[in-house]
């Protein structure tokens, strides 16, 4: 597409990058076909092509545009459009630039600001979250569906096995995962021990910054990312690997090289990003040593967007589950987001619920015994409204 960005914007690295990305777009509209919000809302401005156009206008005029802000807020950042785009438009990156440009200039409502504050200051802090949620865990069934994911399914005792000098596999606990679905980390540690791998957690692992990125809180995100990169880098031995079992964290950490480029944490970030693998990617070579813990179950797999579109790993989970002998039911529209999308379920409850219902209908169409996911966000989001149990796929592996 033709662009006419102002010189001042083009002089910045963000402006340069935005221009490159915009120029790659040919306005074909293929992206709308796989965009979850376009499917629900049917409005050009709620699809990637329209959002790209709104951002282009905003950059060109140099003025924040409140209309653009509504439509950018409605984007799930699932990046299904990137998988579909034949022209290689890095939509997710453009959206980051667009949101970062807009956010400081927006006057958000008090309610909106409170929600965001709560998300940012509570969710990524396991101890704060635990203090608040543990005593009221029994309230979970009484909460409105969309708030249920905020309370843990099981008690959040943290798994003790800290990384030491002999550790070669660092397991990312995930700030939300360790509180809300601790079974995932426990199981992963067991698997690693059984495989004879020296695996452990980093004690001072904080939030990876993914949530703040979602909320376009740039400064906050940079702080979190730099701190996590430094902690992981310190613990990471030569030839070591970092394994993420929450694909939402994995997609962020894997991108540290780009996200931290040009900052003091650039070197740490690049090394950490290079060493990070999703747990399915990591375990695939060991598939013949793994077994199904409940082989009689029929599973429906929900592949999180952060795994299939973000990390470009659409098949790894199904490959392992098939290798250990599970029967997987077919699921239509596997590329579509379930509506969880980080904090989206709280900020955009209507669209989020609609997408969750559609996803559950697709997952349940062949009556599976269990639905499995690869990300804590999707898992808890779906579990909150599903009659079929929803688990992390690791829970079904030994």
């Amino acid at each position, binding site marked *: 597409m033709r662009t006419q960005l102002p010189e001042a914007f083009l002089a910045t690295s963000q402006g340069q990058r935005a221009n490159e990305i915009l120029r*790659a777009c040919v306005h074909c509209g293929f992206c*709308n076909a796989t965009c979850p919000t*376009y499917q629900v809302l*049917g409005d050009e401005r709620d699809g990637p092509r329209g959002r790209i156009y709104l951002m282009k206008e905003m950059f060109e005029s140099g003025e924040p545009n409140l209309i653009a802000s509504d439509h950018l807020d409605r984007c799930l950042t699932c990046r299904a459009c990137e998988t579909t785009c034949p022209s290689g438009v890095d939509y997710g990156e453009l959206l980051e630039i667009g949101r970062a440009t807009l956010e400081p200039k927006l006057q958000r409502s008090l309610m909106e600001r409170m929600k965001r504050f709560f998300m940012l200051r509570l969710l990524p802090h396991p101890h704060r979250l635990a203090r608040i949620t543990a005593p009221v865990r029994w309230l979970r069934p009484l909460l409105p569906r969309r708030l249920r994911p905020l309370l843990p399914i099981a008690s959040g005792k943290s798994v003790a096995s800290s990384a030491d000098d002999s550790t070669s596999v660092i397991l990312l606990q995930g700030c939300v995962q360790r509180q809300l679905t601790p079974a995932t980390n426990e199981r992963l540690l067991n698997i690693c021990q059984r495989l004879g791998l020296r695996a452990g957690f980093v004690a001072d692992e904080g939030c990876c910054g993914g949530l703040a990125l979602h909320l376009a809180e740039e400064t906050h995100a940079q702080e979190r990312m730099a701190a996590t990169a430094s902690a992981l880098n310190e613990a990471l031995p030569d030839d070591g690997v970092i394994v993420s079992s929450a694909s939402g964290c994995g997609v962020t950490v894997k991108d540290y090289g780009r996200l931290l480029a040009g900052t003091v944490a650039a070197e740490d970030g690049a090394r950490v990003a290079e060493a990070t693998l999703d747990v399915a990617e990591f375990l695939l070579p060991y598939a013949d040593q793994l077994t199904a813990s409940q082989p009689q179950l029929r599973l429906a797999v929900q592949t999180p967007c952060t795994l299939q579109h973000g990390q470009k790993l659409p098949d790894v989970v199904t490959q392992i589950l098939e290798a250990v002998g599970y029967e997987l039911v077919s699921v239509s529209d596997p590329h579509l987001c379930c509506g969880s999308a980080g904090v989206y379920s709280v900020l955009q409850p209507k669209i989020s619920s609609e997408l969750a219902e559609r996803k559950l209908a697709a997952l349940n169409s062949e009556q599976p015994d269990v639905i499995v996911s690869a990300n804590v966000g999707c898992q808890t989001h779906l579990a909150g409204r599903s009659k079929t149990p929803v688990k992390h796929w690791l829970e079904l592996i030994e």
Partner: protein
Amino acid sequence: MTTPLVLEMLRANLPAEGLITDPKAIKPFESDGLTAFSAMPWVVCLPDRESQVAAVLRICREHSIPVVTRGAGTGLSGGALPVAKGVLLVLSRLNKIKRIDAQQLTAVVEPGVRNLAVSEAAASVGLFYAPDPSSQIACSIGGNVAENAGGVHCLKYGLTVHNVLGVRGYLMTGEPVAIGGEAFDVPGADLLAVVHGSEGQMVVITEVTLRLRQIPRSKLVMMAAFAVVSNAADAVADVISAGIIPAGMEMMDKLAISAAEDFVGAGYPKDADAILLIELDGDVDEVQANRTAVERVLFAASADSVVVAESETEQARLWLGRKAAFPAVGRIAPDYYCMDGTIPRKAVAGVLQRIGELSQRYGLQVANVFHAGDGNLHPLILYDANVDGELDKAEAFGNDILAACVEAGGSVTGEHGVGIEKLDAMCGQFGRIELEQFARLRAAFDPDGLLNPGKAIPTLTRCSEVGGMHVHAGELPFRHLPRF
């Protein structure tokens, strides 16, 4: 016209968020798939029910407001380009598949249903919808009818017009019309054929009855690589002459191969000058017999290699590169201008050579991707819209290509429609009498000319001006063509 009153009436007849009036919010609707043209409409209407469509039309007719209908906005000729001061009527929310009838082999759908979604939904009962434009993942059925869309499989199964049994919709007056039905033939003149390719100038379509077909029992895809483009072109004619009608027969040249290969890694040979993708379908025996025959023809035409994909995954991969070839070209140049012309099969080699010469003359690269089996060319002219004058150059190049198509006995559009883009080229193809008849036919449906004005049929004034523009060195190009 009292504008606020009209706005009020429109708002009252549309759902919440169904009327967009703020220019900043309208902006993303200013172009369809052809960004070389853009125009801001007065307002955008997004109905989610058929009755709202009728109401919008009635109001606009009463106040003489032009209406442009838009579906997925993927068209490549600017057919859904808004009209300044007009209403842009977007039907993307009318996206329900109403029913699929496995006995009758039909699907009844709303216009905003995506082309591919029909085949996806019909697959569970063993059926598919044959016309498959390359944009089938995103383009919608309403637009397919309006532009009479084609696609890879049209060689064997026909264009949209051959796969639609009936349409329902509204005239500009808001009166309902039903054309065709579930039977193969209906009494009276074949108005269904008139509506196909009418580019939203006759009826606003709100329901289409599609003809479905059995998914063939067996299928395979062959890819033949050629070192010389003209050999590939001749092979196309030879396959058809051998009495074989493949389900699809596509050709891509070097530049297109390279762009598509970089995107999907389909296994296209980047050192070949041209490849042919040929799909054979039918019963197992028929497909195998045709495979042997086609291989013989291809090697006789000096193919360097022939690869056969039998598994579904491999077939899908070979096709994916072709289907995504247009936007994939977006990876090698900032912009491209997609042409659409049709020529007789025997003229393919000659016209391709002519396009190569023009490419040299204009100093713009061109990638060729096309439905070789039915002679439907899609040269993609690469240019940079941020460089002043390059778009004009690309357009002039494109017009020369279309002129070459007409000269070779072909036409200025294969399947993308005329839209706004090919109005001038229409002047080259048709004479005064024909154009006047087109206009009369249109007026029979919409006497005031309020539906999608300024598209598809050039005015005679425009044509005489175009004629004047193209005089070089005192000589009219293509003097043998009828003019006025």
